[in-house]
């Protein structure tokens, strides 16, 4: 549905988007993950026809975003970084206006506007002036306008920014519900959002793609196996030795907690090995009180930081 090949955008000496290539299949939700300034918004603006690329191609539904811009625009709904709303219009009037300029035929307009408001829970605010709405509601209006003409492709730039936790969940559910019928690209720098809503993730940093994969693959691929966290009342060296002896352990890090004085050890294991019971047994065997034992898998946070931070020490520190 969406094909991007070698897309590049430079402003003079600054390259905002650097030979980016990816595809999005019909009905898929693709997450665009990256720190601020990575090139997410620029890529989206190129896809929607707001600005031209310096080189490379992008196609949506088979139409070139630059050569067939009008046709592409008929197929997309777009929520820019800031919701493009007119403060002096009411929610309903605004959505009606957007429906008109998105070429929704007159007979369908009212139905579509009502539908968009229903999906974003804006129905009780339909007559309110947009300037009177809170940030969260304005954001919802922004999402509604991206949906009002029922486009094939929906491009959302940070759709949950400014929303309270309840609204964030609603929006994520809304986005998940849209998949299948619609193809969606959403950008964010909130990591849990990506693992919760997206089928695949593109991690972008400084204009270049750092990784493309499903969230699950990314989490398991990058750092071998599991990590296990134990909280024990034991002397450090003894604990280290004991844990290192457990088969499957690749590494042990220990640290004493300031309050209470317990020792916390993080045990890294080889891929595929589940040594939790062995560790528990070893600790009990030595007669040390065991307070906590749990698995800690490498989170997307850590992968993200690893991939997007140059400083290796940073990644190390965050692993704890």
């Amino acid at each position, binding site marked *: 549905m969406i094909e991007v090949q070698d897309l590049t955008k430079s402003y003079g000496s600054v390259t905002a988007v650097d030979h980016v290539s990816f595809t999005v299949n019909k009905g898929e939700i693709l997450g665009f993950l990256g720190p601020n300034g990575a090139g997410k918004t620029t890529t989206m603006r190129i896809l*929607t026809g707001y600005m031209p690329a310096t080189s490379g191609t992008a196609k949506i539904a088979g139409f070139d975003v630059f050569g067939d811009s*009008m046709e592409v625009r008929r197929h997309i709904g777009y929520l820019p970084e800031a919701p493009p709303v007119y403060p002096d219009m009411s929610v309903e009037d605004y959505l009606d206006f957007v429906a008109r300029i998105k070429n929704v035929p007159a007979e369908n307009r009212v139905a579509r506007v009502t539908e968009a408001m229903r999906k974003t829970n804006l129905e009780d605010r339909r007559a309110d002036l947009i300037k009177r709405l809170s940030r969260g509601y304005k954001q919802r209006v922004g999402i509604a306008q991206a949906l009002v003409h029922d486009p094939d492709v929906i491009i959302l730039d940070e759709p949950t920014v400014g929303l309270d936790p309840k609204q964030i969940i609603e929006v994520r559910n809304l986005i998940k519900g849209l998949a299948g019928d619609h193809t969606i690209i959403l950008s964010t720098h909130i990591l849990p959002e990506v693992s919760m809503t997206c089928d695949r993730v593109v991690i972008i940093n400084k204009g270049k793609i750092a990784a493309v994969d499903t969230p699950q693959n990314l989490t398991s691929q990058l750092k071998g196996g599991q990590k296990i966290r134990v909280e024990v009342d034991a002397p450090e060296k003894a604990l280290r030795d004991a844990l290192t002896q457990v088969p499957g352990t690749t590494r042990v890090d220990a640290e004493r907690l300031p309050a209470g004085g317990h020792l916390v050890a993080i045990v890294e294991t080889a891929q595929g090995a589940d040594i939790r019971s062995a560790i528990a047994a070893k600790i009990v065997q030595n007669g040390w009180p065991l307070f906590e034992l749990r698995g800690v898998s490498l989170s997307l946070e850590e992968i993200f930081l690893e991939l997007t931070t140059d400083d290796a020490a940073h990644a190390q520190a965050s692993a704890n």
Partner: protein
Amino acid sequence: MRNFYAIYRKEMRHYFVSPVAYVCIGLFLLISAFFFNFFLSAVIQQSFQAEMQSMQFGAPPQFDVPGEVMRAFLGLLSTLILFITPFLTMGVFAEERKRGTMELLMTSPISEIQIVLGKFFASLSLFAVMLLPTASYLVYMYLHSDPVPPWRLLLAGYAGIMLLGGSLLALGTFISSLTENQLIAAVLTFVAFLFLWVLDLGHTSEGVFGSVLQYLSASRHYDDFARGIINTSALIYYFSFMVLFVFLTVRSIDSMRWRRA
């Protein structure tokens, strides 16, 4: 066509909820009413003086009170709109860019020409609404004149104002598309208008240069309309002016895509 209408409709609504439009119209009507009154009294006084003179010296001069008043009044209007229209057009594009709604328009299946024409015709409509009450003063005067002057004089005069206004609105719209800041748009537009006005003063220069300046001056073309003459060269001038600036505005919008920094 549908898109053009959607933009037109939205613009009209915005004008009628915006304080700027009401203030401009209010001021315009207030000032024009004041001057109408002033001109009417002044001309009537003059006509009495002329009559007294004619009684003294014999030959009765024809004093055309309605005609004189109309000419003066329309002259005033043509100057007044130079000051008022920058405020009507300053926000047309500058505000869209500032609000971020330009991004919505440019990523929707609507062509630039539809956007520009929708906005331009909305500003023209507002202008007409602003102008209409002033016509009522002149109509009132006409109806109380004996003999009633020909209506085509009134129509020609207002046609001229509309054309002049339309040209200024087109220019103002273009300038609004160049910046995000409404105030700068207003100031630049005002400066551009002043420049046009000053061009008119160059009509005293000799030779070719003088003629060129005369032709370019927007106000000069207006004079014939004030006298009730619909001059085709003036019509061509005004229409060309409007078309030029509408075209330039479309180009300016298009260039926004390339201008990002």
